[in-house]
């Protein structure tokens, strides 16, 4: 795995992400500054981490989406390269047009940090091959604006094409408003683009990769990615 972690001013989970990538793949990722016009040669995974890029003062992710480095990411994705956006990273991917839809303020209008349960809808993607379809994992969320929405047609297409990868659920996998902390439509927690190589998700699997620090439920995503990339290489 040769991962590149993007760093925008105000991003703050880039260190968590880098540590997890190292832990799960054995390889130190490259930290790529927003002003760069190109990704490091040989990059096979781009990660857009969480945080508050540009303070989220305009609209979450809106300014970061217009950074020079994002042109390189669009090119990379167009060539089939794998892109993972987590939390603010998901917002940035939506704002940059790599994923459809938008993340609105949480339904209760408050920032929420807690462990949530995610139902893994598919295991046949490079991001989820470490899980079984239907498996429920426990990972934390930490966001004020994670309430996913898109127009009806887009949602119908996402659902029809099986592009909803993670959904907020009860511990036993039931989709239920009581377990949908931010009010996202159809309890959507993570989606992929039409080609299946760009994933955006609100929860933080990178914060649940060690038994003593939360749980290891997030590990499958990174281990699966490492595996997929090893196969591809």
């Amino acid at each position: 795995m040769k991962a590149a972690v993007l760093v925008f001013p105000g991003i703050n989970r880039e260190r968590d992400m880098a540590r997890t990538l190292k832990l799960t793949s054995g390889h130190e990722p490259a930290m790529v500054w927003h002003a760069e016009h190109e990704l490091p040669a040989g990059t096979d995974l781009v990660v857009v981490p969480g945080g508050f890029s540009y303070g989220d003062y305009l609209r979450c992710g809106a300014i970061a989406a217009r950074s020079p480095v994002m042109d390189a990411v669009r090119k990379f994705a167009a060539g089939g390269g794998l892109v993972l956006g987590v939390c603010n990273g998901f917002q940035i991917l939506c704002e940059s047009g790599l994923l459809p839809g938008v993340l609105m303020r949480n339904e209760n209008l408050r920032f929420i940090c807690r462990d949530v349960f995610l139902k893994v809808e598919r295991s046949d993607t490079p991001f989820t091959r470490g899980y079984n379809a239907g498996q429920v994992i426990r990972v934390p969320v930490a966001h004020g604006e994670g309430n996913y929405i898109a127009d009806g047609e887009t949602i119908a297409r996402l659902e029809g094409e099986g592009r909803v990868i993670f959904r907020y659920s009860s511990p036993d996998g039931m989709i239920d408003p009581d377990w949908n902390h931010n009010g996202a439509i159809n309890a959507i927690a993570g989606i992929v683009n039409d080609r299946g190589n760009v994933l955006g998700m609100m929860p933080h699997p990178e914060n649940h990769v060690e038994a003593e620090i939360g749980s290891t439920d997030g590990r499958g995503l990174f281990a699966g990615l490492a595996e997929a990339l090893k196969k591809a290489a």
Partner: protein
Amino acid sequence: MLPNDVKITPELVAEHGLKPDEYQRILDLIGREPTLTELGIFSAMWNEHCSYKSSKVHLRGLPTKAPWVIQGPGENAGVIDIGDGLACVFKMESHNHPSYIEPYQGAATGVGGILRDVFTMGARPIACLNALSFGAPEHPKTRHLVSGVVAGIGGYGNSFGVPTVAGSVRFHKRYDGNILVNAMAVGLAETDKIFYAAASGVGMPIVYLGSKTGRDGIHGASMASAEFDDKSDEKRPTVQVGDPFSEKLLLEACLEIMAKDCVIAIQDMGAAGLTSSATEMGAKGNLGVTLDLDKVPCREEGMTAYEMMLSESQERMLMVLKPDKEKEAEAIFRKWGLDFAVVGETTPSMRFIVKHRGQVMADLPIKELGDSAPEYKRPFVSLEKPLPVDAGAIEPRGSIADALERLVATPDLCSKRWVWEQYDHIIGGNTVQRPGGDAAVVRVLDGPKGLALTTDVTPRYCEANPFEGGKQAVAECWRNLTAVGATPLAITDNLNFGNPERPEIMGQFVGCVRGIAEACKALAFPVVSGNVSLYNETNGKAILPTPSIGAVGVIADFKKSATLAFKKQGEAIFVVGETTGWLGQSIYLREICAREEGAPPPVDLTEEKENGDFVRALILDGVATAAHDVSDGGLLVALAEMAMASGIGARLDAAPDDVPEHAYWFGEDQARYVVTVPAAQADALTARAREANVPVWRIGVTGGDAVAVAGQRALAVADLNARSEDWLPGYMAGHD
């Protein structure tokens, strides 16, 4: 001759919060009438908040030294050695007055200020904590203040990217007009890479970094040094506005130039902004400072020297850079998009000179600005201390089970999940123990070392007996750290009191400080940083004396830390420490009997140490499967909390005959813990306790799904949990 643009009248002096004798002191010191800018500078430096003029003489009695203390009080933050070449840098500070006037920004900038104190010293912040005191829930402003303060703390810390891992929230009518927002930050640095404020070398460039200067916060520190009245809302413009995004950039830029070895001295611009930071750097380094205000990056046009010197705009730093590294440092700051300007230089003159538009606006002796600040030995009286109440004479109200049901849903004892879920408490990937336990545990780098962190104080004890209350605040923190298995190392104190010009308030202050000193000495738990907040009064009504303590401990292997949750069915439950049934000043007496009276429970520091050392050893030896300190609400509340954290119930023996039942279950005797051990090890534990001369009692067994005291109605753990969890969200939603 300095231009005296404005005539200094007695009214103007009074508006600056300076007393006539203090103004006379200024005249004697400089031998002439000050300019308006100079008067502003004096008012900024000599107010209570910056000068500690009422408290200094008493603070000298606090123990501040230990072999592991690298830096005690007097710098931006305290520094302790935690081994392996690492230092923990921490401090707690109040932002009470601004938070009452504008809760979101007041609390947010409180967090921003304390984070800056920590990273100014070269440390990357790894955790935040807080201690919040609000007015009575039924007070019309409380809901608004809770909502704003919590959102402000979260808004700043979450965006900055530091986990807020622990804290305390209390409600009492005595905070109705004057809430307390005490924020603590903890950082990590290498022991040989700590940065200080003292400038060195003559002719060194003084560099301004960070955000631009605006008109916000002018006289903020003076506001914090006066009582409130009905017109306090008019002071809203003196509250600063926080920008966590800029602060995050400032952090990264500062740490980067520190790593590149560019920095000689650094001081953040906090209270009294440019004035206090520039004089401090000069005075500490025995140097003069000349500032050229034309160079200061300003957000607004036409700012006067007076405004620039007193602005408390946030996210700003002052540095003395190594001249040969100036270009390198500038490039780093430009990369992060921050302002960078050489605004002055160090001089051999020992004068603090401020120039603006070609004119000298201030020319003052730099040392005396700080050193000659008035220092008061204010008169103090100790009020008569209430006598202990006889538990036997207190009529129980309802059954033990009824009382427990009610207590877990009281504002002070209920779950604070609604609060801490608004704080990102996991960022950093090192939060081993999250909010809700006795202390948070945060892994240090990649481990195995961990830091245990807590804040605590029991204001009602402090009011009833300041000395015992001061002791108790320290002991309780020590106990919280011990209950997770950590070795307590040092504290920061944030002393919140009323008007020190009233002898009875000064008496509370003196008593609490003496109590803190006594406990710190006995427990080898020195004070390494702190903050004093006086004049917490509105219309002459003072808050409860609230010396918040923030504490840090270390555990060699974070995996060995204990949590309060019961682990298994069928384990033996022990209480460590003597239970006499002390109901005076207890939550039971207040909430169930509606009586706030009596002496608080005394703290025997020898017992405290012996019992704590015993419990810590049980945890580290892997004998104790769960541990919890017994505090507010007493033994049965502690047991219920252990059950609620796990979903596992407990069957408990009846109270012994020699202690009234309600006093046994809800009394607040100190130096106590509850621990569980596998049933097979119960006898060994008893023997071990006997050997250590520590009193322990086996009081029951874990199991089932209810908390069941012999002879009492069993209470389902799920129901207790629902009661505990529901109060705060219900209250905030207006369901009361």
